[in-house]
Structure formats: structure tokens, C-alpha cells
């Protein structure tokens, strides 16, 4: 029973990581109906920006560095959207898929060239620097360990912080999308681009806004997960697979669905693999075989391509 609960907790902890990449991916899909395969890498480069600001070059306050990195990542996303993707028809999938894959490799190689492929050492944890609750996080490798807790469960403190941050991110996104004028225009564009152009929405700006928003939140997510999965250019490679599965499972055009999908994929991975495969190998996130999300992705796309919460696209034959 304890093991089962522990697996559920592990699944939720990993699921939060997958959600942080799946949510921006869904945002970009909503805006432009393309899958941004480079989302993981753009998030990774955002984490590296924060690393440069906070450690390597300027030794700034981590919160300030995070905000600056989010702004830079948003600018990068906007620039990519404007210069590489704007001129292509988003309904023609081949060029945009190739471009996002190209961005994936360019960003990965770029980061590898600058910061090399070794895992970076002293990565600051954003959660420790938070004003009021940071001291509570700091100095514990985990709380509710077997010594303090009769059930013997182990919950990692930064996972709790990550899930909390994820909830705050979702709330912020909900507020931005549903309460601001820009969000209203964004929802208009994502529901029908041509009609929203007719009623006077500057569609180009909204696409930039969507990419910027997605990249900023992606960078924030990567900064939060970097202390857990080590900061290195390939850190998002396996996460990308899980996130694709999560985004497809929750529905490609549903932000909440992507968050839930992330947790579902994490749970499925940890519980199913926990009983099928070796328990020890689950502890390391990157070493676990990725067969599970690939199978889930194939099954979901085969039987229910719109996912759990997505809107079904009707095609006229």
C-alpha cells in the first residue's frame, strides 16, 4: 500500500514536469494550429538565460533573473514566430513541422555549443529565493520522509513547489486569456482566424502574443524544473516525449487538459512501469524507458485524436 501511494506521489511529481512543457505547447497550438516541437528546447534556453543572469555573468537576484529570462524567452519566441513561421500557411503542415523541428535542433546545438553538454553545477533553485516560503523549502532534501512520517512516504519539497507554481501559472493563464482584452482577441483568433481578422483583430500581433506567452511560461517551467532534472541542453529531450503524450491526451487545444494530461501521463508511467518493470529504475526520470508515453500517444491518436478535453474537428469530405 505504501509502495502504491509512493508511486502515485512519484507520478504526480513527474507529471508536474511534463505539464510545464505541455501547457505552452497547447497555447501555441491554440494560436497557430501547429505543434511546436521546439517547445522543450525553447524552455531549456530560457532556463539557461536565467542561469547566465543569476550565476554565470551578472550574479543577479534569482527572481529578477527569472523575470528577465522570461522576457528574453518571450522575445525569442516572438522573433521565431515573426521571422520563420508567419509567412507559411499554418494549415499546410509540412513546412511548419520542418521549421519547428529545425528550431529544435538549432537551439539544442546552439546551447550545446555555448554551455556544452555537461550538466551545470550549482543551479539556483527559484523556490528557495521566494520571499516568504523560500526558507521553508530550503535546507530540506525532502519532507515527510520515513523518519518523520509513519506511512514512510517520501515527498520531494520542490515538487510541491512545482505543483503550486503550476497552479499559479494556470490561474495566471486563465486570467490572461479570459479577463483581458488581448486574451479575448487570442481566443477569437484560436477559434476562427479569418472571422477575427474581419472584425478588426490584428491577427499577427495575437500570434506573436501567443508565442511570447507560451515561451515565457515555458521558460518559467524550465527554471522551476531545472534543479530537479539537471540543467543541460538535452534536459528536455525525454520530457518532450511525455509532454507530446500529455498534450495529445488532454486535448491539443485545452490548457487545463494539458495540465491534467501531464499528471495522467506521469501517473500512468510511474504506476504501470512500477509494476511491470524494475522499481529502482523509476527513481531516475531520464533512465526510464519511454515506451509508455509513445504507446499512449499512439492509442490516443488512434482512437480519440481530439483528446479528453479538446474540441473535435469536423472535416468536410
Amino acid at each position: 500500500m505504501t509502495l502504491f501511494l509512493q508511486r502515485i506521489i512519484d507520478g504526480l511529481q513527474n507529471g508536474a514536469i511534463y505539464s510545464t512543457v505541455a501547457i505552452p505547447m497547447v497555447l501555441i497550438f491554440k494560436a497557430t494550429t501547429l505543434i511546436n516541437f521546439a517547445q522543450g528546447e525553447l524552455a531549456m534556453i530560457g532556463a539557461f538565460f536565467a542561469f547566465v543572469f543569476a550565476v554565470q555573468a551578472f550574479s543577479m537576484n534569482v527572481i529578477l533573473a527569472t523575470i528577465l529570462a522570461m522576457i528574453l524567452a518571450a522575445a525569442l519566441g516572438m522573433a521565431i514566430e515573426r521571422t520563420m513561421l508567419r509567412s507559411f500557411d499554418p494549415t499546410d503542415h509540412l513546412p511548419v513541422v520542418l521549421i519547428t523541428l529545425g528550431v529544435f535542433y538549432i537551439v539544442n546545438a546552439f546551447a550545446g555549443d555555448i554551455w556544452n553538454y555537461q550538466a551545470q553545477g550549482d543551479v539556483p533553485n527559484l523556490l528557495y529565493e521566494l520571499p516568504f516560503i523560500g526558507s521553508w523549502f530550503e535546507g530540506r532534501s525532502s519532507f515527510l520522509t520515513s523518519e518523520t512520517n509513519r506511512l514512510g512516504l517520501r515527498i520531494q519539497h520542490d515538487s510541491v513547489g512545482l505543483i503550486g507554481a503550476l497552479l499559479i501559472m494556470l490561474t495566471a493563464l486563465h486570467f490572461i486569456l479570459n479577463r483581458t482584452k488581448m486574451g479575448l482577441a487570442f481566443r477569437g483568433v484560436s477559434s476562427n482566424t479569418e472571422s477575427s481578422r474581419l472584425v478588426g483583430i490584428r491577427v499577427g500581433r495575437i500570434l506573436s502574443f501567443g508565442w511570447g506567452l507560451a515561451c515565457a511560461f515555458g521558460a518559467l517551467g524550465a527554471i522551476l524544473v531545472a534543479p530537479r532534472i539537471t540543467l543541460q541542453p538535452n534536459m528536455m529531450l525525454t520530457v518532450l516525449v511525455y509532454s507530446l503524450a500529455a498534450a495529445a491526451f488532454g486535448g491539443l487545444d485545452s490548457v487545463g487538459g494539458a495540465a491534467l494530461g501531464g499528471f495522467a501521463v506521469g501517473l500512468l508511467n510511474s504506476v504501470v512501469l512500477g509494476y511491470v518493470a524494475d522499481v529502482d529504475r523509476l527513481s531516475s526520470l531520464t533512465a526510464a524507458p519511454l515506451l509508455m508515453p509513445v504507446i499512449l500517444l499512439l492509442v490516443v491518436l488512434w482512437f480519440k485524436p481530439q483528446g479528453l478535453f479538446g474540441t473535435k474537428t469536423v472535416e468536410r469530405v
Partner: protein
Amino acid sequence: MPYTFNKGSAEHRMYRLVGYGLLIVLMLIIPFILPEFQVTRLNRAMAMAVAILGLNLVLGFSGLFALCQSAFIALGAFTCGSLIMDHGWDYWMTIPAGMLMAFLIGLLLGIPALKIKGLYLAMSTVAFAAAFPSLTKLEFFGIPERTGGANGRDITEKLNPPDWMPIFDATEPGRYR
């Protein structure tokens, strides 16, 4: 003043033949004029070109978004490597075996690809390609020992050229390898 000639005419065929002939001549000259390092890189490029031909077949001709070519490249290479190192096969004999292995797995993956379309197929194949390095650690049939995990394994045996080829010396390292 642009000069035009029709596709399929005798002239067009002649130009194409000349082009192919020039390509062959260039390939024959390259090993003698470039340093070995560059020759190795060009070799790798040509090997990749063969693999990309397969991608062209599935993506270009049939319009399927199957972007997991890298996984099949690795699959064939791992099959060859394991057959050489673990079973002592001849190098040349492993090439059809590797092709057959990739063919069978491709057939298996092709079944869902019939149902999934467009962007969704791109998603699942990219996921498969990204997942492949960790699938080499999957513990079935001794896969981790055969593949050496994600770090791969060294193939100590060399691909020896047939004796009748006069151009190069196989004992010289780095060239045509």
C-alpha cells in the same frame, strides 16, 4: 537568353548522363585531393543521403509525416553491430539483416500510421524518434547488452573492401570507414 530543352529529349538525357558522369568522377577524385578527415565527413554525408532516400520515399512520395527515420537508422545499425559483435557474422552479411529488421519494425509501426494522419502522425513519430535512445535500454531479449545502452558500443571489426577494388588500402585508418 535562356536556353530550353524538353524533358525526356535526347539532349536532356545527354545532359543528365554527363551530370552523373561528372558526379562519379568527382567522387573518385575526392579521396585523393581532400584530407582524410574531410573524406570521412563526406562518407558520413553519403551514408546519411542513403538513409534520407528512405525518408524521401515516405514523406515526399506518399506524403506521410513519418519523421522517425533516425530511429530506423539506429535500429539497422544496432542490428548489424550486435550480429557482428555477438554472433560473429560477416560484416557484409549483416547489412541485409539490418535492413530486414528495420523493415519488420517499420511494418509494425506502419499499422497505426494508417489510421493516424497529418500533424498527429508527425507528433507520434517524433515522439518515437526521441524515445528511441532510451528504448535501447529496454530489458527484453538482452537488448541493453546488445546495444550497449544509449552510449552505444564499439564495433571493432572493420568493413573490409573487396579485394578487387584497387583504390585504397584498408589498413590505413580513417579512410573509407
